[in-house]
């Protein structure tokens, strides 16, 4: 919806009235917007994944207590008061959703993509995950257990994808460049 849509105009009406009352300032809002545009995004999560692929001790700590393990990165953005990282293997494929809202681990993945927040994904992924994942291009055999994590409380989930073949000699920076946002939501497998 563009800036002339009904919600766009109503948002402007509310913002202007709140500013006139001295209850918020445009600069304060600008600061938040800038933070989410520039500093918070899936690159954070990609660094975590790359380190986990490289460092088995970090990986063990990450899977045990995600919040404690990522503390060293000092990411901004919130929504990870308790972060649970779930690992994809040859036998288990994890995928994350929030059916009631659009909960998402902002500090590691940034703001969620629109499809994550739309009714189609939220309604379908808990009921027909194999079909949805096929639409995303994933063909998973019936022997692979699909674990859907519906983030219904304040715990946030991130998927630790499997390391793609042929990445063994990559540097940590090269590894993190291979990690996509979608692989950390669980709708993509890295090749």
């Amino acid at each position: 919806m563009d800036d002339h849509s009904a919600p766009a105009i109503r948002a402007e009406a509310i913002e202007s009235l709140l500013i006139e009352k001295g209850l918020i300032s445009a600069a304060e809002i600008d600061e938040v917007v800038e933070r989410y545009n520039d500093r918070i995004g899936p690159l954070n999560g990609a660094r975590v994944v790359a380190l986990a692929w490289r460092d088995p001790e970090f990986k063990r700590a990450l899977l045990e207590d995600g919040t404690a393990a990522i503390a060293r990165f000092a990411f901004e953005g919130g929504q990870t008061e308790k972060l649970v990282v779930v690992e994809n293997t040859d036998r288990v494929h994890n995928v994350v959703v929030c059916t009631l809202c659009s909960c998402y681990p902002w500090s590691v993945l940034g703001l969620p993509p629109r499809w994550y927040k739309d009714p189609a994904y939220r309604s379908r992924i808990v009921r027909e995950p194999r079909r949805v994942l096929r639409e995303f291009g994933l063909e998973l055999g019936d022997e692979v257990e699909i674990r859907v994590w519906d983030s219904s409380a304040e715990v946030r989930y991130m998927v630790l994808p499997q390391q793609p073949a042929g990445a063994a000699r990559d540097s940590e920076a090269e590894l993190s460049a291979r990690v996509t946002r979608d692989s950390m939501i669980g709708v993509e497998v890295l090749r």
Partner: protein
Amino acid sequence: MDGIHDLGGKEGFGAIEREVDEPAFHARWEARVLGMNLTGGGGAGRNVDHSRHAIERIDPAAYLTQGYYGRWLGGLEIRIVEAGVLDTASITRRALELGASPNDLIAARPSAHPDRIDYRPAEDGNRRGVQREARFVVGARVRTRAHGVPGHTRLPAYARGRVGIVTARHGGWVYPDSNAHGHGEDPQHLYAVAFDGRELWGDGAEPNVVVHLDLFEPYLEPLDG
């Protein structure tokens, strides 16, 4: 609340539409709505459960058609109006001055008798100590509450009255069902509970699917045997 927000398992929404190189915001107003919400909404308050419930109470058609930031905007307006910061008429007057149409669908549906929200968090964040011992151990079989409740809850309709296995204990947390309505934090134990796809969806379930939910203790009953 059996609202439009409770989407898990609903059918008919069709294909998932993805975008290549999607920007963080698709229009300026979306960013302004995020900013207003995260800076406290000019007096709308910082009770996350109340804010979630306000979004659940917006016009259901708007919920489906005005997008994520449209939902946040509707929730913000409900909270601002219910808190007495602005009134609906003055917002509408300003919107008309700015070029709105009198026929626009307005997402906000503030209550004439709102909950009194005077939230002073006991601590930062949402994790809390709970004096009572946790009722369930990892591995316990539990059945979820069978019916909905009128207010805010984190038990989705698709998982009501279902049997699952506790797979993790997440400790104590602010209880959204209480906090959303200004009835206090009432911390409760929280559990990860795994449900087999067939338990949720019957014979039509896809093979080898397990759905995990994080559920508060009051939603769960022990299952013997």
